[in-house]
């Protein structure tokens, strides 16, 4: 029940393989970063997509402040854990997601604090969430309280729940179907009845910017 989520006060801890670990109050974090608008297509693993104008800042600019060590190869994100406001018992809480360090510092990867010119509503990940536009939506973790830089890949929530269905990379890829459904097309939210589905693009259409990070990888194996 997202509307019950208590988001005030809020702080984000940035720790792990860094020179300068930090715990930032939300207010201070917002003062240091200059939020901009980023218009991205969000593609859900369940076959819908939507263009969203986010307000946020590149994750890289926050990570720069903590000075990652050369041993930092992965970034682990942890969501808030408020059992009293969370009813879903299917997944193990808190929700955890992760990125490779090069993905995390990619200029397209942002932390969003608002959307449509407003602050983030609770159900969309208030007060601060990740947005990685070339990956399926479940990678874009909501309500972040902890960012850890790690030597090894973290175990992530959906990957732990169903490792054959939800890979660590989860790059949008129309030619790698989910084991139970096709990823070839997507329903654009807001489109009319009787309008055809959109053909899904590799890396959700952001291939020009991100494909080089995966050029030596088998995208079927590392799905």
């Amino acid at each position: 029940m997202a509307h019950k989520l208590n988001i005030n006060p809020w702080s984000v801890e940035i720790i792990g393989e860094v020179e300068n670990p930090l715990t930032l109050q939300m207010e201070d974090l917002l003062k240091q970063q200059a939020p901009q608008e980023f218009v991205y297509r969000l593609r859900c693993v369940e076959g819908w997509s939507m263009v969203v104008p986010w307000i946020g800042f590149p994750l890289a600019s926050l990570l720069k402040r903590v000075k990652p060590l050369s041993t930092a190869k992965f970034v682990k994100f942890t969501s808030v854990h408020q059992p009293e406001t969370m009813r879903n018992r299917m997944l193990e809480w808190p929700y955890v997601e992760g990125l490779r360090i090069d993905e995390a510092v990619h200029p397209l990867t942002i932390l969003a604090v608002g959307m449509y010119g407003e602050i983030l509503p609770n159900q969309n990940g208030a007060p601060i969430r990740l947005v990685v536009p070339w990956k399926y939506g479940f990678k874009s973790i909501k309500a972040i309280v902890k960012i850890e830089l790690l030597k090894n890949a973290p175990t992530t929530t959906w990957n732990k729940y169903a490792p054959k269905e939800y890979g660590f990379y989860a790059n949008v890829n129309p030619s790698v179907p989910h084991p139970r459904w096709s990823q070839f097309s997507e329903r654009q939210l807001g489109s009319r009845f009787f309008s055809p589905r959109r053909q899904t693009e590799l890396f959700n259409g952001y291939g020009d910017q991100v494909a080089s990070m995966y050029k030596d990888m088998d995208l079927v194996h590392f799905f």
Partner: protein
Amino acid sequence: MLFDIIRETLNKSYLGASLKTPLLNVGWVLLFQKCFKLKNLCITVSLIPLCWIAIDIAFDNLGANPIQALHIRLGDWSLRFLCVTLAITPIQKITKWSGMANYRQLFGLYAFFYASLHVLSYLYIDHALAWSIIVTDVVESSYIWFGLFAYIIILLLAITSPKSAKNIAGQGMEKASPFYLPSIYCGDYSLFLAT
């Protein structure tokens, strides 16, 4: 087929038998009895889910992904009617009330009706008959295989449902109703895989 049912209902409804000896021989009582004959009532009530969905479409009440919501709701109603259809034989055995056999066909046909709308909504409302995408979608989505298999079974049951078809196919078709069971298994499994 629906007209067959309605005609059949009017001709030999169980409660209709009471029409021959009405308590009060007044026109409106007859009319009231006719309107509230159990089978007519079933036919009408079974259309309520469709009206409900239509109202939700009209008032934009289907949530953020209305096409998916519509598709799922039609499929759910088909499965519910299949459950009702399957429940009739056991209920008949338990209650020893034989008056329900005709309702099995009625609800079975409604399950087919909602399943057909479910399939049409997939092909036409969601995919706008874009066959190249549909073919890939069906080939790559295992949950659709089970749904499709369930639909083929219920389609065959519906085609062989009218008396004339049963006469052509012979008495064997009378025993077709057990095939509702695999249909509901496949339908349920399709839903399970899709969620």
